[in-house]
């Protein structure tokens, strides 16, 4: 029995042929509740391999050239049928519509920050109060630190006019210290790389690697 494999949400139906999917199935469009989904009918989700991951990304990249926004769905997502798909999307319609608007006309660049030692912790303010207060202050500090990448400060002003949104993930496991995802206007990826390359000396001792442009995978998470 076939099931519905969900690839992405689209800003609208593409003018071009949807073509075939990862399992060589014919792709089709499901419009429901103001959302447009790209799906294929398959027996099982494709197993993750270099071939299938590249194939799924290629399917979406091809359509992205025709559309203002493509919001990728996590690899391996299956629903039982179109009715289940419509119900699942209806539950998140406002969030998904907002996410589509956020990524419209944009692409993702990925920066990784590398170093031989973890960045020193910012000293916390003199702890006052009781153990509960100190505990909460520690939690707040850890939460704030998870969103900061002080290693990239020399780069921030140079990238300011290119970056629309940012997602930060700290690893703090040398040599990998952090991953930063930037949402930039489509076509700005080459300039983004140039700006990063020009800033490498000012970032020392930290090193950075750049990949992209990607579809905005990291900017779909809030729709979850």
């Amino acid at each position, binding site marked *: 029995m076939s099931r519905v494999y969900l690839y992405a*949400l689209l800003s609208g139906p593409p003018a071009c042929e949807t073509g075939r999917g990862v399992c060589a199935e014919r792709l089709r469009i499901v419009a429901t509740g103001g959302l447009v989904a790209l799906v294929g009918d398959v027996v099982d*989700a494709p197993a993750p391999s270099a071939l299938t991951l590249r194939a799924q990304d290629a399917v979406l990249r091809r359509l992205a050239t025709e559309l203002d926004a493509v919001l990728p769905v*996590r690899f391996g997502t299956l629903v039982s049928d179109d009715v289940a798909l419509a119900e699942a999307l209806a539950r998140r319609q406002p969030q*998904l519509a907002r996410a589509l608007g956020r990524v419209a006309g944009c692409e993702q660049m990925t920066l990784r920050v590398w170093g031989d030692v973890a960045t020193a912790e910012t000293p916390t303010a003199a702890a006052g109060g009781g153990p509960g207060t100190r505990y909460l202050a520690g939690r707040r500090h850890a939460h704030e630190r998870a969103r900061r990448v002080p290693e990239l400060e020399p780069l921030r002003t140079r990238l300011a006019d290119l970056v629309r949104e940012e997602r930060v993930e700290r690893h703090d*496991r040398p*040599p990998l210290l952090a991953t930063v995802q930037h949402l930039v206007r489509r076509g700005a990826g080459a300039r983004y790389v140039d700006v990063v390359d020009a800033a490498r000396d000012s970032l020392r001792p930290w090193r950075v690697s750049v990949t992209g442009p990607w579809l905005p*995978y990291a900017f779909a*998470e809030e729709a979850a």
Partner: protein
Amino acid sequence: MTSPTRAAAREVLEATDDSLLDLVDNLLNRGVVISGEVMLGLAGVDLVYVRLQAILCSADRVEQRHAR
């Protein structure tokens, strides 16, 4: 015993390059997650496994590059 998914993950990681590691991270760990009626074709434990391995492999690669 190695699961088919885990074996597939190993295949990804052993035949990979930097951009494929990002592809693994993007496709398996990001993107819209829809729950409820939806069945994920991959077990959560394998996603975690793939991601950790991807990060570790990518770290090794950078170390090698800077050691040259």
